[in-house]
């Protein structure tokens, strides 16, 4: 665990260094007239913009730690958003609509889990299929429409702030302090050894997928809270961002390693980079170039660390 603490502090340092350098760079870009990056509204904005990203990444972290991967979270989020919007349009109360969205998304997660675990099909393939199915279902159910159901309630406005905090906290507690969480690490680290030591490997794996589905549903709720809409177009490419953030945060892509706080820092690092690059007025492709480089370097460092440990 000391190694984890050191890794987290290292990520924190990286985040602070990147933020400091971006603060200076964006100020220079304005000819030193302003300091656009460090304004409190901008920082609050970064947190607000990270909300769905963060929630998805926490769920993804659990799945990756358990040895799987979920490519369908963006599409499941779309399906969830459509369910929420349709429920609201049909007159449901907000809590009921949220339950519909999160419930539907969790079902998708369960399907992912059951099919890949019991069917012994790599989760990459199964969730790839779900990625297509969920989005198509979202299109069909909504009739291709984007559905708008606004809300004036202050409680709803606060969801993009509260939900991510709750999810991060719960994710941390589950992974760090519950048998379920420890089981996930064991399964991801060495599934055979886990099975031999009596852990219910299948249930653990399926559980991780179900939770990931649920977080996709929560992300849909946050999207609705921010935009009032649900559509089949929501969450495009969101899965790739979630995976990237988890990996930058120290989650090993082969399983067995990772930490929710690391993922949080990974999300913040990517959001900070994105925000800084937008303020810098870098065109979108160049933004993606930079973020792509950061991801590859992060994974490279992760591999170096892993190799270093097995040799010592």
């Amino acid at each position: 665990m000391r190694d984890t603490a050191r890794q987290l502090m290292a990520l924190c340092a990286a985040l602070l260094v990147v933020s400091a350098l971006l603060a200076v760079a964006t100020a220079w870009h304005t000819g030193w007239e302003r300091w656009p990056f460090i304004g409190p509204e901008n920082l609050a904005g970064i947190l607000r913009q990270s909300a769905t990203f963060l929630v998805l990444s926490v769920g993804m972290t659990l799945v990756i730690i358990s040895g799987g991967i979920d490519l369908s979270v963006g599409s499941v989020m779309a399906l969830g958003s459509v369910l929420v919007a349709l429920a609201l349009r049909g007159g449901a109360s907000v809590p009921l609509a949220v339950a519909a969205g999160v419930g539907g998304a969790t079902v998708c997660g369960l399907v992912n889990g059951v099919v890949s675990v019991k069917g012994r099909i790599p989760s990459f393939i199964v969730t790839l299929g779900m990625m297509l199915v969920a989005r198509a279902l979202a299109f069909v159910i909504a009739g291709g429409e984007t559905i708008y159901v606004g809300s004036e309630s202050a409680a709803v406005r606060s969801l993009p702030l509260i939900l991510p905090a709750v999810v991060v906290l719960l994710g941390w507690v589950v992974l760090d302090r519950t048998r379920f969480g420890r089981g996930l690490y064991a399964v991801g680290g060495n599934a055979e050894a886990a099975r031999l030591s009596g852990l219910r490997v299948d249930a653990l794996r399926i559980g991780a997928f179900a939770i990931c589905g649920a977080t996709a549903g929560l992300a849909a709720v946050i999207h609705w809270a921010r935009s009032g809409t649900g559509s089949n177009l929501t969450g495009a490419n969101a899965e790739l961002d979630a995976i990237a953030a988890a990996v930058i945060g120290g989650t090993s892509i082969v399983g067995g390693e990772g930490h929710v706080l690391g993922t949080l820092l990974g999300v913040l690092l990517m959001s900070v980079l994105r925000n800084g690059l937008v303020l810098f007025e870098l065109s979108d492709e160049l933004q993606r170039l930079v973020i792509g480089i950061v991801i590859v370097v992060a994974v490279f460092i992760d591999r170096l660390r892993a190799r270093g440990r097995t040799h010592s």
Partner: protein
Amino acid sequence: MRHALFLALIALAAVAVVAGCSRKTPPSSGTTPKFGGGVPKDLRFDIPSAESGSAVTKASKAYRVALIMKAASNPFFATMQKGAEKAASELGIELLAQTITDESSDQQQMDIVDSMVSQKVDAILIAPANSKSLVEPLLAAQKAGIAVINVDNRLDPDTVKTAGLNLVAYVGADNEEGGRLAGEHLCKLLGGKGSVAMLEGRRGVDNAEARKRGFLKACEAHRDIKVVASDSADWDIAKGQNKFAAMMSAHPEIQGLFCANDNMAVGAIAAIKEKGKAGSIIVVGYDNIEAAQTAVKEGTLAGTIEQHPDLMGFEAVKTAVAHLEGEQVRSETMVPLEVITKDKL
């Protein structure tokens, strides 16, 4: 600790190199950016323009105007940006131009709107990726005192009304009329009879639906024209190619094709060539991108619709500044549409 700092430094080095190379040149007409191709060789401002009617020629202060567009990979928006930059430099204001990854990244656009609000810009000009989900983020911008102007793709009027968003103005093209002009052109080239197909834009998006309506209207006016196939290829080249290949197999009698944007037309033309049907199917596109102009000159594309995005960008900026200067502005400015054929190039 060392590794993480190394990571941070690499990231910043990447940013520095990339940003330094693409340093935004001060906006002035005639400059071509070093990065990001697809910028047309000339900007046509000499057309009889439907101007916003603004009398402002120079801004009283350096307003900060954000131009938030859709996909950078679509040359349409590169042209729009050039037009907007021209107006910005003429008026003496600061333009912050932003694009997104692909036509459907409304989340990304929402985040950019949010960033611009944090940056307290004076006005936001936006071509929304989603006509409904951008309304509430824009409402937040309006509540923060930012003027909101809708460009190109319309925000959904019902959603705008329900949310209580007060748009300062709309600057765009009549997409339905554009679809109709394209349809008329195609029907005329077919001599008023034959089987035609359509590759639609992204379903549910306002300008896609408008172009579809216009095309169908034009076809209805010709009794002997039959629309045998219509499907969406999501504005995408590869999807356009695959979809039309499938359409040709299912309906070998197709003689004409309307594509709601030139990207899909380029794909369809490739599919036609692959199938060995070059010359037997008449294709009309929309957007007048460079690839389409080449195709029109070659003869593989019978025509495309020019929407003058440069003029859209130009007038949108002028409208914004006029409004900020306290002038009453026109609520709708429509740029003229043109059917581009070989003789016009």
